[in-house]
């Protein structure tokens, strides 16, 4: 009898509906632990003071320790549940590699989740970068066209029309209506 390979074992785990929540817990635990360690290190650079005069580092240090403890608890709990079902713990860590790409996201991760996220982000960055130099109208247009392209049914013409409409609306409401001090056109 041949040993099942790691990949086929992982595939089987993901068939179990309880596996994904556990893996999510395990990963969030790791995230909290990491944030805790980072905080503890950053807090240590500030004076801790004493019990009567607490320094600026003491409250963050307490929180960092708390985060680390909670993270450990969450991860350990998830791992224990996994073990108790008779699964091997060593599946857990390589599973994260699969998880991020195949199972944490639905269907095709790259096309359905990461690309839209990147486009939305790019649109927002373009808005922030263009506003002061090119003015509100063009910044809104850029935001609408770039971020709008993230939808799977996006149409360019529609987005251009929407962008121009929103630019006009933004000028009317934000700049003239509410009197926000924003540049409207390229300086």
């Amino acid at each position, binding site marked *: 009898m041949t040993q099942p390979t790691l990949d086929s074992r992982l595939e089987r785990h993901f068939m179990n509906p309880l596996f994904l929540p556990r893996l999510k817990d395990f990963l*969030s635990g790791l995230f909290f632990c990491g944030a805790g360690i980072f905080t503890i290190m950053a807090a240590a650079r500030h004076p801790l003071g004493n019990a009567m005069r607490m320094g*600026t580092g003491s409250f963050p240090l307490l929180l960092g320790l708390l*985060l680390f403890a909670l993270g450990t608890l969450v991860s350990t709990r998830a791992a224990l549940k996994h073990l108790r079902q008779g699964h091997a713990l060593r599946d857990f860590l390589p599973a994260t590699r699969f998880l991020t790409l195949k199972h944490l996201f639905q269907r095709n991760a790259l096309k359905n989740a990461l690309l839209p996220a990147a486009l939305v982000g790019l649109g927002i960055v373009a*808005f*922030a970068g263009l506003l002061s130099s090119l003015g509100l109208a063009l910044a809104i247009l850029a935001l609408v066209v770039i*971020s*709008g392209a993230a939808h799977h049914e996006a149409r360019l013409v529609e987005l251009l029309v929407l962008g121009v409409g*929103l630019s006009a609306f933004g000028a009317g409401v934000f700049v003239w209506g509410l009197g926000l001090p*924003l540049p409207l056109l390229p300086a």
Partner: protein
Amino acid sequence: MELFAHLSLGLDTVFTLGNLGYCFLGVLLGTLIGVLPGLGPVATIAMLLPVTYGLPPLSALIMLAGIYYGAQYGGSTTAILVNLPGESSSVVTCLDGYALARKGRAGAALGIAALASFFAGTVATLIIAVAASPLAEFALKFGPAEYFSLMLLGLIAAVVLAQGDFLKALAMVALGLLLGVVGTDVNSGEERFTFGLPELADGINFVVLSMGLFGIAEIIANLEVQEKREVFTRNIGTLLPNREEFKAASKPALRGTLLGAVLGILPGGGAVLSSFTAYTLEKRLAKDPSRFGQGAIEGVAAPEAANNAGAQTSFIPLLVMGLPSNAVMALMVGAMMIHGIVPGPQVMEERPELFWGLIVSMWIGNFFLVLLNLPLVGLWARLLSVPYRLLYPIILVFCCVGIYSINNSAFDVGLALVFGFLGFLFLKLGCEPAPLLLGFVLGPMMEENLRRAMLLARGDATVFFTRPISAVLLATATLLILLLTSPWAKKTRETAFRE
């Protein structure tokens, strides 16, 4: 009667053309944005906050409260017509509201929701008016140790009563408290966690955080799902419920109101908990529980009354103690601070017209809500048929302009995007973002009170247990945690949230 004196002071303040106008405008805008699927009250308030910057404090607060009720009711409209809860408090409204809509009784469901909300809002406003003064007097006895313990209790209660995993929610609170630390320390002037960025010296703006976590993250998540939704726009039918429906709904609405009013006061309570509990209660009391989920009018009336009553009474801890009990109230704290009002027991003494004006405006806001929604519901329904591919760019524009206009800072827009990605990660990992926001707002206050209490007690940490009020608060918090870990509570909590 003191109560009438207070209420008439409030009426005098609110009944100016301007304030009534802002109240109306708030309700209108709140409903308009709140109707859009995927935008709950937190995102709606954050998005509309810049609109209130230029107003005098009272008008701004009145408008924000109006926005809150509008958003709340808009969420219910979406739940009934599209079966998409705009926010977690209208999840239960979906169950029977949408079923009614499919039966061709969408109008009746919307009408009952509006009337039940109005009734609940009226009762809850009266409760606030009666309870506020004695509670504020009590709160004035609080020193730093008591405040710290109260905030700890509030945070723990918020985590215990909310949905989801206790440990993860607690970790999210801790993360929120930490984000609250970023910036210049008030006591020493020392910069903490700013990583040398001058833009972070004033700390992270709470609008930036909430728009990122609730607005942008939600959009990214929605883009992945690509679902088709069925909207009932044509056959809404008459908005007035018939006699039987009215009769069937009246008692559940009353029970929902009382339940919601009580649960709303609890830290961590508010609209979500109230509506869930009210629905479960009605199902238990019903002669034929199997009708629930198939279009029982009681299943709309009770949770709608409860969530409105809860939304209202959750103002009590905020106005009386200065403590937000949920994410929406956390936003209100931030909004009040922008206008130079530090929420707490002193507001009632120092600014009575502001305090009572706000309370009276709550009732007026609820009145406008009925007035506005009965005729305009067709318009909201049409708004819902706008496809998401056009909707989210519009939302993004509002978010980005709103964030930028806080400080005229492009950095803030980028920071909001970072929180947006972080929020998406949290959604993927099954971590609720609401406790984080609550922790973020309470963080600076908690640290300040902790440090002050320790200084006053000369470094003796037992002060938190020897002062009676503080000891009782901490004991309650411990009790809550013990209750949560008991097997009995685990079971009831699971069933309550599954239903």
